[in-house]
C-alpha cells in the first residue's frame, strides 16, 4: 500500500508541471467510415516547447497547421479528415521543457451497410420524454369509464415496427441541452452543452472549432439525397440548426442563418419560424447586425418563398423556404383554439406541423436519390420550461397528427423509414386528477388513485378533432424540477411566465413567483432549483424512439443517443467514403 501511495504521489507531481494535451475527435470516438472531421490537438501549460510528432496507426500525419494562440499554448489543426473502416490509434509524442509525453486516442470507424431504406423522416419532439408522450396519450385517448380500458393510442405508439428507449448526455455533462443532443443525433458524437456539431477548442472564436460532419451533409455529399428541415421553433434554434450548421455557441443566430444557405447542407426545404434572423438589420424587428436579406437571397438561389399556410399549401417547388412567424410559431392551442390577438399578433394563417411535413415530403420526393427530412415539434420544450404543460402536451398531439400522415406515406412508399423521438426530457408527470369546477389553485381538488377518476377530455373537440384543455375533470400534472412558483393546476388562454425577476442584481438577483398567477388563486410551491433559476430545466430521464418501415430494426432496446445516427446511416446504406 505504501508503495502504491508513493507512486500516485509521483504521478501527481509530474502531472502538475506537464503540459495538458487534448485531442479531438476525443478518445473512444465512433465515426462513420468517410465521415469528415477536423483533427485538433491542443497543448496547454506549455513550458519551452521543443517538438511534437503525430502518427495515425504508426504513420506520420502530415499537413498539420501549427498555431500559438497564447504564450502558454501550442495547437495543431488539420481539417476535413476521414477514416477507413476499422479501429485506429492516433498518437501524439510531445516534448517541452517539462519533459516528454505520449498521448494516444482510439477511434472506430463503422463500415457502410447495405441499404434498406431510401428515405428517412425523423420527427423530434423537443423535450418530449416518455412521460410527456404518456401525458399526451392519456389526454388524446381517455380511458373507458365503464371498464377502465384504454380507448386508443397515439399514432406514434401504434403499429410499431420497432421501439427503443434512448438515453441522453453531453460531452461535458450528464444533463443535456438541445444543441448537444440534436448534434449527437446528427453526428454520432458526444458534443458540449450549447455546441452544434463541433468539438471544444481553446480559442474564443465560436465558429472556428473542430467540426464533425452531419448525417444531412453526408447524405447530400455521398448520395445526392434531398434534405429538408421543418420546425415550429424559430429556425436558427438548436434542433433545426444541428442538421445544417457548426458552432460552439448555439446563440450565433446570424451565422447559423447564413450556414443554412452557404454551408455543407443547404437544405432543399426549410420551413421554420423566426424570420427575424433572416431579414436585414434595417427591418424593424430584425435580430441581425448586417444587411443580409435571406428572403431575397434565397429566391436568387432558386427557392420558392412562402410565408403562410395558404402559400405553403399552394407551393409546387423543388426548393422551398418558408418563414411563418417573426419568432416561434405559437403553440397549437393558440393557433387552433384560443386564437387570441395577444398570442398570435398578425400571424393568423400559420401552417400546422402536418401541413409542413406533408409539403416537405412532396417537395423532397422529386429527388430520385431519396431524401432525409427532420421535423421538429419545437414548442413542446418551449412551454415545458415555463411549466405550461397544456401548451406543451397539445403540441405533442399536433406532432402526432404529422406522424400519422408520415406513417401512411411509409405504407405506400415502403422504402421510407419513419422515426419519432426526442432530444431530451423534462420532469413533467401526471400524478392525479383535478376537479376543475373547484379550482383554480385548490389542493383539495386534486384526486389521487381512485379519487382521480377518469378525466373528461374529449367530451368536446376542436375543428381538428383534438380535445379541449378546459374540461370539468382534468389531470393534475406538474414538474419535478421547479423554481418557486404559484401552481393553479389549470391552464390560461394568455401565457404568463411562472416567475419574474426579484429586481435585484449581482449575487442578490433571483426570481419570485409571478404575482399575476398567484392572484388567480394558487398554491405556492417552494422550488428545488437554485434561486437563480427562472423556469424548469431538462432532465436525464429516458426518451422513447418509435420506428416504422424500412430499417426500423436498427432501433431497439436501450440506445444511446449517438446510436440513432448510426442507425439512420445503416438504414440508408450511407457510404460516406464516396462523393457524388
Amino acid at each position: 500500500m505504501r508503495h502504491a501511495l508513493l507512486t500516485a504521489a509521483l504521478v501527481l507531481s509530474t502531472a502538475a508541471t506537464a503540459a495538458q494535451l487534448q485531442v479531438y475527435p476525443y478518445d473512444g470516438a465512433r465515426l462513420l467510415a468517410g465521415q469528415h472531421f477536423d483533427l485538433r490537438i491542443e497543448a496547454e501549460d506549455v513550458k519551452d516547447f521543443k517538438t511534437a510528432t503525430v502518427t495515425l496507426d504508426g504513420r506520420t500525419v502530415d499537413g498539420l497547421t501549427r498555431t500559438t494562440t497564447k504564450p502558454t499554448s501550442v495547437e495543431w489543426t488539420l481539417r476535413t479528415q476521414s477514416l477507413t473502416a476499422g479501429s485506429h490509434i492516433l498518437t501524439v509524442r510531445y516534448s517541452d521543457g517539462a519533459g516528454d509525453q505520449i498521448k494516444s486516442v482510439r477511434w472506430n470507424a463503422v463500415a457502410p451497410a447495405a441499404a434498406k431504406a431510401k428515405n428517412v423522416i425523423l420527427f423530434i419532439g423537443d423535450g418530449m420524454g416518455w412521460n410527456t408522450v404518456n401525458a399526451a396519450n392519456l389526454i388524446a385517448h381517455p380511458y373507458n369509464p365503464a371498464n377502465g380500458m384504454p380507448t386508443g393510442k397515439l399514432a406514434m405508439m401504434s403499429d410499431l415496427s420497432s421501439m427503443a428507449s434512448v438515453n441522453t448526455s453531453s460531452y461535458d455533462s450528464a444533463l443535456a441541452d438541445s444543441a448537444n443532443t440534436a448534434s449527437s443525433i446528427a453526428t454520432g458524437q458526444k458534443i458540449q452543452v450549447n455546441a452544434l456539431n463541433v468539438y471544444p477548442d481553446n480559442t474564443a472564436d465560436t465558429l472556428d472549432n473542430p467540426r464533425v460532419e452531419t448525417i444531412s451533409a453526408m447524405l447530400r455529399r455521398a448520395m445526392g439525397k434531398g434534405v429538408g428541415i421543418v420546425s415550429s421553433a424559430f429556425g436558427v434554434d438548436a434542433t433545426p440548426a444541428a442538421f445544417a450548421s457548426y458552432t460552439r455557441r448555439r446563440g450565433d443566430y446570424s451565422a447559423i442563418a447564413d450556414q443554412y444557405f452557404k454551408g455543407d447542407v443547404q437544405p432543399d426545404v426549410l420551413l421554420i419560424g423566426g424570420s427575424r434572423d433572416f431579414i436585414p438589420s434595417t427591418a424593424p424587428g430584425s435580430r441581425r447586425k448586417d444587411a443580409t436579406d435571406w428572403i431575397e437571397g434565397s429566391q436568387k438561389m432558386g427557392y420558392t418563398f412562402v410565408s403562410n399556410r395558404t402559400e405553403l399549401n399552394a407551393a409546387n417547388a423543388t426548393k422551398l423556404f418558408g418563414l411563418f412567424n417573426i419568432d416561434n410559431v405559437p403553440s397549437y392551442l393558440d393557433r387552433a383554439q384560443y386564437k387570441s390577438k395577444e398570442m398570435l399578433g398578425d400571424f393568423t394563417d400559420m401552417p400546422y406541423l402536418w401541413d409542413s411535413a406533408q409539403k416537405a415530403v412532396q417537395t423532397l420526393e422529386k429527388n430520385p436519390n431519396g431524401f432525409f427530412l427532420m421535423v421538429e415539434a419545437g414548442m413542446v420544450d418551449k412551454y415545458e420550461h415555463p411549466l405550461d404543460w397544456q401548451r406543451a402536451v397539445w403540441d405533442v398531439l399536433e406532432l402526432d397528427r404529422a406522424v400519422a400522415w408520415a406513417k401512411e406515406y411509409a405504407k405506400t412508399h415502403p422504402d421510407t423509414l419513419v422515426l419519432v423521438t426526442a432530444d431530451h426530457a423534462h420532469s413533467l408527470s401526471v400524478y392525479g386528477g383535478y376537479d376543475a369546477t373547484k379550482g383554480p389553485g385548490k389542493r383539495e381538488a386534486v384526486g389521487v388513485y381512485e379519487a382521480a377518476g377518469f378525466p373528461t377530455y374529449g367530451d368536446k373537440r376542436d375543428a381538428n378533432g383534438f380535445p379541449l384543455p378546459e374540461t370539468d375533470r382534468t389531470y393534475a400534472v406538474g414538474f419535478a424540477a421547479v423554481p418557486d412558483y404559484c401552481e393553479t393546476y389549470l391552464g390560461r388562454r394568455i401565457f404568463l411566465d411562472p416567475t419574474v425577476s426579484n429586481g435585484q442584481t449581482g449575487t442578490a438577483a433571483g426570481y419570485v413567483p409571478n404575482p399575476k398567477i398567484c392572484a388567480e388563486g394558487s398554491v405556492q410551491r417552494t422550488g428545488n432549483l437554485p434561486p437563480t433559476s427562472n423556469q424548469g430545466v431538462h432532465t436525464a430521464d429516458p426518451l422513447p424512439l418509435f420506428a416504422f418501415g424500412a430499417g426500423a430494426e436498427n432501433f431497439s432496446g436501450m440506445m444511446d443517443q449517438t446510436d440513432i445516427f448510426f442507425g439512420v446511416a445503416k438504414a440508408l446504406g450511407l457510404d460516406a467514403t464516396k462523393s457524388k
Partner: protein
Amino acid sequence: MNRRTVVKILGAVPALAALGRAGAAAPASLKFSELYGRVTVRGVEYSGKIKSLAGQAVSMQGYMAPPLKPKLDFFVLTREPMSTCPFCTTAADWPADIVLVIMPPGRELDPSTRGLTVTGRLEIGVKKDDETGFVSLVRLYADRVDSA
C-alpha cells in the same frame, strides 16, 4: 423576495416623481398594444398612433425587465413582468413589444418589480446602443417614473 425588499423598492420609486415638469400639459397615453400596426415575417411596422406621437411626451404603463445593474440609467419596459434580462445574453428571446427607457442625464433609478408609469419623450426607429449592443425600436426619454 422577502417583505423588507419589497418595501425598500417601493420606497425608492416615488422619489423619482421629483423629476416631473411642473405645469406641463398632460401627455398622451400609449399602450403596448398600440405600438405596432402590423408584424409580418419581413419585420415590424409602426402603428399610425405611434408615428403621430413621435417626438412628443407620452405616458406608458408596464414593468421593468430584469435589470443589468443596481442603479439604472436605462431599462426595458415590458407589457408583462418578465424573467429574462434583455441585456444579459447576446441572443436572449424577449418579446418584440418592448420599450427602452432612458433616464435623464445624471439621474438613476433603483430596480423595481412593481408596475410603473413612465412619462417622457417618444422616439421611434431602429437604434443600436453602442455600449450594450442592444437594438431598440421604441424609446422613451423619461421625465418621470412613478409606481403605477
